[in-house]
């Protein structure tokens, strides 16, 4: 239950009400004061002051001054009138409650409206700022464009001028040339004289011709002189060169160097596994070091029934190159014949691993691998695994009747055992 503060004093004028509320030892902040147009509340728990005003006031303009031990309210009345009392007379509890709620709602609404207006104002300000910046930038841009345009025009004019001068000079050159052609024989003698005097100068001064008007004769003379002074063509020779080595045919780029290094590294590694056991293999013949030749040998021995020898051949081939799936596949077949079922399973699995991109080219090899593994499982009485493999084989090659029959057999076997147990 709050403690009601009821000691207050008030006085009024036609348009305002002055209310002073003494607080003994209480610290009040603006958050403790709640005011709407007909309800005033000061709440500093556990103390409470509440006033249901006689008539509406203008709560936006009314003020509250928090001073030492006292709050001084200046409330401006909405309608100029003299109030009979500060608060409403009938203190019906329900009504009071109602009024309180109303007040709160009103306050809410007011707050909402205020935020709305603030938002709208903010947006307008932003828009305005944006427009202003756009204008400024536009102005800057046009200024630069103007400068550029002026520059361009100036330069174009200069160019035109230069061109005209140049054309005039060329015309003069042409006419002078024609004149000189007529006067040629006379000048031959002159030329010889100037020849001698010019030789010492040739080396020091540069005979770089400047663009001058009406000096056609000058240039023609020097041209003729140059021809006579030209050395003979060089004697042909060849220079042999070496290039800094580069494996790739593409141009060298810094950003690609890391990639290229990696690629080369991998290539080197792949080649290294081949040459791992060189020491032992030294006493073998050339062809015996070739995995393909060994595979063929193995196949032949398998065909004749010499399974152990075939396994040996495949073993050596695998040591030389362990990335050929067919070697494992064939070795699995040998192991099956030799009843080395676990080894057969291992080899078929390895073969399947190596045949990982499951493409149509791999089909026959994969079918064989699955079938061999399936057979091995069944021999070991692991019928469900065996059936899985047979079904995988069937998926690749649905038209193979032998596999179909074997799969059926295995299914019956499984059902049989299930029934028994």
């Amino acid at each position, binding site marked *: 239950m709050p403690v009601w503060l009821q000691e207050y004093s008030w006085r009024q004028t036609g348009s305002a009400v002055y209310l002073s509320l003494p607080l003994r030892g209480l610290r009040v902040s603006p958050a403790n004061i709640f005011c709407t147009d007909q309800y005033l509340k000061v709440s500093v728990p556990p103390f409470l002051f509440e006033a249901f005003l006689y008539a509406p006031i203008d709560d936006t303009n009314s003020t509250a001054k928090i001073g030492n031990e006292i709050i001084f309210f200046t409330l401006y009345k909405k309608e100029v009138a003299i109030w009979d009392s500060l608060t409403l007379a009938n203190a019906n509890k329900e009504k009071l409650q109602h009024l309180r709620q109303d007040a709160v709602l009103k306050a809410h609404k007011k707050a909402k409206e205020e935020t709305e207006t603030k938002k709208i104002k903010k947006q307008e300000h932003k828009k305005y700022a944006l427009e202003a910046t756009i204008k400024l930038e536009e102005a800057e841009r046009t200024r630069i464009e103007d400068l550029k345009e002026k520059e361009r025009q100036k*330069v174009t004019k200069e160019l035109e001028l230069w061109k005209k001068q140049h054309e005039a000079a060329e015309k003069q050159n042409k006419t002078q040339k024609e004149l000189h052609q007529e006067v040629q024989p006379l000048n031959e003698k002159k030329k010889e004289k100037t020849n001698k005097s010019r030789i010492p100068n040739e080396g020091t001064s540069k005979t*770089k011709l400047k663009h001058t008007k009406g000096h056609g004769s000058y240039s023609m003379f020097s041209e003729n002189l140059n021809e006579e002074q030209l*050395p003979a*063509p060089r004697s042909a020779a*060849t220079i042999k060169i070496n290039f*800094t080595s580069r494996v790739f045919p593409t*141009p060298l780029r810094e950003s690609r160097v890391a990639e290229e290094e990696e690629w080369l590294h991998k290539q080197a590694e792949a080649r290294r596994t081949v040459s791992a056991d060189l020491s032992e293999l030294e006493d073998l013949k050339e062809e015996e070091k070739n995995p393909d030749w060994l595979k063929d040998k193995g196949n032949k021995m398998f065909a004749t029934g010499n399974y152990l020898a075939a396994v040996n051949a495949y073993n050596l081939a695998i040591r030389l190159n362990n990335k050929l799936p067919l070697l494992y596949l064939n070795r699995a077949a040998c192991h099956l014949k030799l009843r080395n079922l676990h080894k057969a399973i291992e080899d078929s699995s390895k073969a399947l691993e190596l045949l990982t991109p499951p493409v149509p080219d791999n089909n026959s090899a994969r079918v064989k691998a699955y079938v061999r593994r399936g057979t091995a499982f069944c021999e070991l009485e692991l019928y469900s695994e065996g059936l899985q493999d047979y079904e995988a084989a069937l998926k690749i090659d649905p038209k193979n009747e032998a596999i179909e029959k074997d799969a059926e057999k295995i299914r019956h076997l499984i059902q049989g055992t299930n029934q028994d147990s």
Partner: protein
Amino acid sequence: ERPQVVAHAQQALSYTLFDCKWVPRSARLLCLGSAARGTGVLQLYELRGGRLALLREIEKPKPIKCGTFGATSLQQRYLATGDFDGNLNIWNLEAPETPVYSVKGHKEIINSIDGVGGLGIGEGAPEIVTGSRDGTVKVWDPRQKDIPVANMEPAEGESKRDCWTVAFGNAYNQEERVVCAGYDNGDIKLFDLKTMSLRWETSIKNGVCSVEFDRKDVNMNKLVATSLEGKFHVFDMRTQHPTKGFASVSEKAQKSTIWQVRHLPQNRDIFMTSGGAGSLHLWKYEYPAQRSRKDSAGAEMGVAGSVSLLQNVTLSTQPISSLDWSPDKKGLCVCGAFDQTVRVLIVTKLNKV
């Protein structure tokens, strides 16, 4: 105020443009390229007002990759071209039906061509150098048919690398001349034609797209080599250290390939690079306080200076593959890009740099 690059004129073309060159002593320019049907195109334009007017169009059986006026006299102004088939031809543009000189110089496309000794610049015999995809660099004299006067080829058993760029330099008297060649594996080799030997070689970390000496007709001063991955190197060529070679400074201009470098003919310390992103950068080289110093063993070693960017501009979205300054008007240049446009630009305020 920095130099500005002003776009003066441009022309859309109907073929792939590989090279564009100013015709010396004129306001005309030449565009070389490859038409869609696999033939070569030569077009002669004249700068009129703010536009390019087509004066002449010549079609040739093979696409043309590069051309130069460097080895002809000012009166004749013959154009030397290298084409996709490895043929070197010299054309008289007044009578372009048959070439003045023709040789099947290389087995594969001629990537780059340069000429020296003509146009009244420099001394000595006019010569043309071509660098090709077959890994060889050959120097030709128009007076000698069929056989090059110098041939820089891979040794026996050596696998070839594409030669992407060649440049002449050091032609300050009648005997001296060097050829610099850049290859796709980052090699830069300097051949001395007087002694017919390899004078210097180095390797940068990217394929070399373009090399140029700042001036062909002086004692070799600076060499700029541009490469893939947006880098270029400026070598100070005045001092050669016996083991370390030439000093250099390198700069990374942009992320894409730098296709071409061209020095301003009127000021050898200013050069422009064109990039794979369609941009042009204008650079100025500043010399160090002392261009050479002694190293610990007492041998002379060069000191490289520094490069500063004066201006850059993006003109296109496609690489600008060719660039040429006009030798007659300072700041006038033409550039050709792979968006089938040739643009004439004027760079202003170069006097104040």
